[in-house]
């Protein structure tokens, strides 16, 4: 009996030991795996472009203020004295920059006159030629656990933060072996005296073990497991490695479904800047939050968070890390955290989709979710906000006018920098922040008259045959289709206009004249132009293609117009600027790609007519001052039965496409002019872009011609217009009755004088 009891005891001990050893071994391998691998799977972070402010550069003050507002800068009176503040006086803007990358935080004074930055000066009066605002964080590519962090290496951790953490969380960190009986005892005594929990007994290593492997439940069993894991961590890793892992891994806040881990990301999340730029009071706030991220959240519980921050400050004062004076100064500061920059995983779903499409060309999904890539996109948050506001406002206005007919109206819009092809903003719905069907990239719709400039560009490349005053036939047309059917195109005004000059046919968007032109040119010539414009689809060989039955997505349409807006230079659309690894090493850059697809002359002629669209054509209604300032041009498009309302137009360096319509393809009361153009107008009026002057191609000459017959005319002749021609292609004939009004006395005298001058010089 005795023997058997002894045996049972031995056996139990053996079994317990085996189980214990097995458990510890499993835990040990988990510790190593987690700390060596999984912990460092960092999701890619996506940023908008950083705004650069350059001496001599162009900037609209309202746009700058909007950017600062989006970045949560606070408008103050007087000179700003804290990062994240700005003020405005008559001709200057003072910004206390938070700092980002190589941009030091500090106060800068910008003198802005006539939309131009005259000077940038530092607080000490020294002139600076270039400063950069931090880019807006716009989303991330998250792994399934939705933990987000920015990994820091030890050199990126400020020494005072390290000291602060140790004072508050684990004074004996460098002397214990993972668990500290002294700390447990001290916490017990302190908490008993205070009749509450004022200090925890867990070491930093225990806290790390807890956050890596265990749930937050407080049980003896879990405490024992935590202690074993802490001991194992201490066996495998140095103190410095453990502290760094803690700083990178500790949970600090929750933002929607996204969990904010580590001090690197917490600094960006609460203060919009790198950890190295934080002041002591800001660091104290973050350290204070470790005790209870939700309880001491400066967003949800600011009073409690401040009390806790002040306690941290008093602890470091007691340890002589700061003086009494510094303590009083820091304690007096307000919290000044920024509101979360995005609540969901991505604030701009349509733009994010375009970024994802571009990223997938070079990265696989696991790279994006684990390698901590820093993706700087071309998103301009101000332009994006204006775009969103424009479509929402315009939809409201249209609904007031058309009522329930517009219930369920959808839309899409994309804005690019026409010079570079950089996509700067996109929306895929009239509710831009909603996820779902992204019409900007997925809605394939008939483009209506948006196709016409492509046909006219095909013609204008043949200087000898077509110029802007070439007469086109806009009389009734019947085309026999295969199968014996007749197709008879009509104009929007249901009238035929006989012979009209080419520029009128395009600016008035006449269907019949355009169909004839397309058929005269032939499908292969038109196809060639489509290809040069970056349109990858083959055009079907039926004549309705020339007046808009061709289908495109808004993204494809804006690519085609990019080459036109950009003087004939094709640049593929691109939403990403650079992709960097977490170590700030450039992994991939997306360089400008430029290819000259058209000579400048035909593009110049086409752009002249696209400008006419704004002066007298389907986009009329803008002041001549605005048309000149923006150097604008564009084209409306309306598909059959007004199922699609389109507008593409450029102003300054911006090119924008807008589509409005219904997902079920029903008829709408909107044309390109009454629908999409209104969104464009609303948007551009907010942005008020600044244009660069472009040199006129040397072979372009202007001539007065008649708007009806296209023959030579004069400034004083009725119904005349001054239009450009490629040198040598100007009309030669001038009707008898216009000879008088073409040559004024003044210009005749000037001509005679010139002749005499020429004769003298030749001699």
């Amino acid at each position, binding site marked *: 009996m005795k023997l058997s009891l002894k045996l049972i005891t031995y056996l139990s001990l053996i079994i317990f030991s085996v189980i214990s050893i097995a458990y510890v071994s499993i835990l040990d391998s988990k510790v190593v795996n987690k700390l060596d691998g999984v912990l460092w799977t960092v999701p890619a972070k996506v940023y908008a472009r950083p705004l650069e402010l350059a001496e001599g550069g162009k900037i609209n003050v309202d746009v700058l203020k909007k950017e600062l507002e989006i970045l949560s800068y606070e408008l103050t009176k007087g000179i700003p004295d804290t990062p994240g503040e700005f003020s405005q006086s008559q001709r200057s803007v003072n910004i206390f920059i938070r700092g980002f990358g190589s941009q030091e935080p500090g106060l800068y004074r910008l003198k802005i006159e006539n939309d131009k930055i005259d000077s940038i000066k530092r607080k000490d009066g020294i002139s600076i030629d270039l400063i950069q605002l931090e880019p807006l964080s716009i989303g991330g590519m998250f792994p399934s656990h939705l933990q987000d962090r920015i990994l820091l290496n030890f050199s990126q951790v400020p020494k005072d933060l390290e000291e602060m953490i140790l004072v508050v969380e684990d004074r004996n960190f460098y002397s214990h072996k993972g668990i500290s009986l002294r700390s447990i005892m001290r916490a017990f005594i302190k908490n008993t005296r205070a009749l509450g929990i004022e200090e925890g007994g867990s070491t930093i290593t225990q806290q790390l073990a807890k956050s890596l492997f265990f749930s937050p439940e407080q049980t003896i069993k879990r405490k024992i497991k935590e202690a074993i894991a802490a001991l194992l961590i201490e066996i495998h890793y140095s103190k410095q490695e453990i502290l760094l892992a803690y700083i990178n891994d500790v949970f600090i806040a929750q933002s929607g479904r996204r969990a904010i881990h580590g001090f690197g990301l917490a600094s960006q999340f609460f203060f919009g800047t790198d950890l190295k730029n934080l002041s002591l009071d800001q660091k104290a706030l973050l350290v204070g939050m470790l005790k209870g991220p939700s309880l001491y959240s400066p967003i949800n519980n600011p009073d409690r968070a401040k009390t806790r921050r002040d306690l941290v400050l008093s602890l470091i004062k007691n340890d002589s890390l700061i003086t009494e004076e510094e303590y009083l100064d820091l304690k007096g500061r307000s919290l000044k955290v920024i509101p979360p920059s995005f609540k969901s995983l991505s604030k701009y779903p349509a733009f994010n989709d375009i970024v994802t499409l571009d990223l997938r060309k070079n990265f696989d999904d696991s790279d994006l979710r684990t390698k901590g890539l820093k993706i700087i996109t071309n998103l301009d948050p101000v332009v994006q906000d204006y775009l969103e506001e424009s479509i929402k406002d315009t939809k409201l206005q249209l609904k007031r006018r058309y009522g329930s007919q517009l219930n369920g109206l959808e839309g899409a819009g994309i804005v690019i920098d026409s010079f*570079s092809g950089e996509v700067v903003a996109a929306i895929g719905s009239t509710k831009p922040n909603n996820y779902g069907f992204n019409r900007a990239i997925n809605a394939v719709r008939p483009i209506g008259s948006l196709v016409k400039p492509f046909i006219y560009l095909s013609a204008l490349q043949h200087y000898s045959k077509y110029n802007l005053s070439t007469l086109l036939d806009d009389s009734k047309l019947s085309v026999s289709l295969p199968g014996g059917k007749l197709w008879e195109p009509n104009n929007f005004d249901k009238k035929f206009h006989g012979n009209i000059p080419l520029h009128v046919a395009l600016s008035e968007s006449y269907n019949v004249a355009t169909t004839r032109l397309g058929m005269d040119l032939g499908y292969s010539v038109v196809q060639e132009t489509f290809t040069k414009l970056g349109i990858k689809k083959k055009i079907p060989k039926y004549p309705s293609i020339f007046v808009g039955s061709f289908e495109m997505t808004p993204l494809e349409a804006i690519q085609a117009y990019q080459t036109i807006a950009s003087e004939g230079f094709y640049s593929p659309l691109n939403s990403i600027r650079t992709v960097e690894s977490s170590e700030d090493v450039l992994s991939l*850059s997306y360089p400008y790609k430029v290819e000259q697809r058209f000579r400048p002359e035909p593009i110049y002629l086409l752009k002249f007519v696209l400008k006419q669209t704004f002066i007298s054509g389907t986009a009329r209604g803008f002041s001549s001052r605005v048309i000149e300032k923006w150097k604008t041009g564009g084209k409306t498009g309306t598909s059959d039965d007004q199922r699609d309302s389109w507008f593409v137009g450029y102003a300054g360096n911006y090119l924008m496409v807008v589509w409005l319509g219904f997902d079920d393809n029903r008829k709408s009361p909107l044309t390109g002019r009454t629908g999409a153009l209104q969104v464009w107008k609303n948007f551009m009026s907010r942005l008020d872009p600044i244009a660069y002057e472009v040199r006129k191609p*040397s072979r372009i000459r202007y001539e007065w011609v008649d708007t009806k017959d296209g023959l030579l005319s004069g400034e004083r002749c009725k119904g005349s217009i001054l239009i450009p021609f490629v040198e040598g292609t100007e009309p030669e004939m001038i009707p008898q009755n216009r000879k008088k009004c073409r040559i004024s006395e003044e210009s005749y005298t000037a001509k005679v004088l010139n002749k005499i001058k020429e004769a003298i010089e030749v001699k």
Partner: protein
Amino acid sequence: MKKNFNTYLVALILMSLFLGCTSSPKKETNFYDLEVEKFSSSVKLLLTDLEFLKKEILKVNANKPSVQRILIEADDKWMEEDLKKASSALERGLRIAKDESALYLRLAHLRLEQGLIKESSAFAERGLLNKNASSWELLLLKIYSAQK
């Protein structure tokens, strides 16, 4: 010796242009009108000596101090043969100002070094549309645009 030859060659082209322009009193000097193709053999010679051309390009400064600072950064990277970073810096310059010929010229040469002849020519053609370009800058841009 080669450098001297090239300097003479550029001077010769300029002189020919100047003489050409003076013989036609009706027209103002406008280097944009210049048909570089007429001097194709001389231009080709210049294009064979990229080092000489590069030295000429590096002498072209920007008008805006902010762009000049970027040019210095780009030139440093270029000297270190880090073409990717040099290109990134120049593109950053273009985002700030699209009317600086110094940027187009450097990008045209850099793309040539990267073996992207079409792009080199396209940057030069774009630069030719810059209204603020000086006659000398236009002439240099014409040389690169003539590669097509």
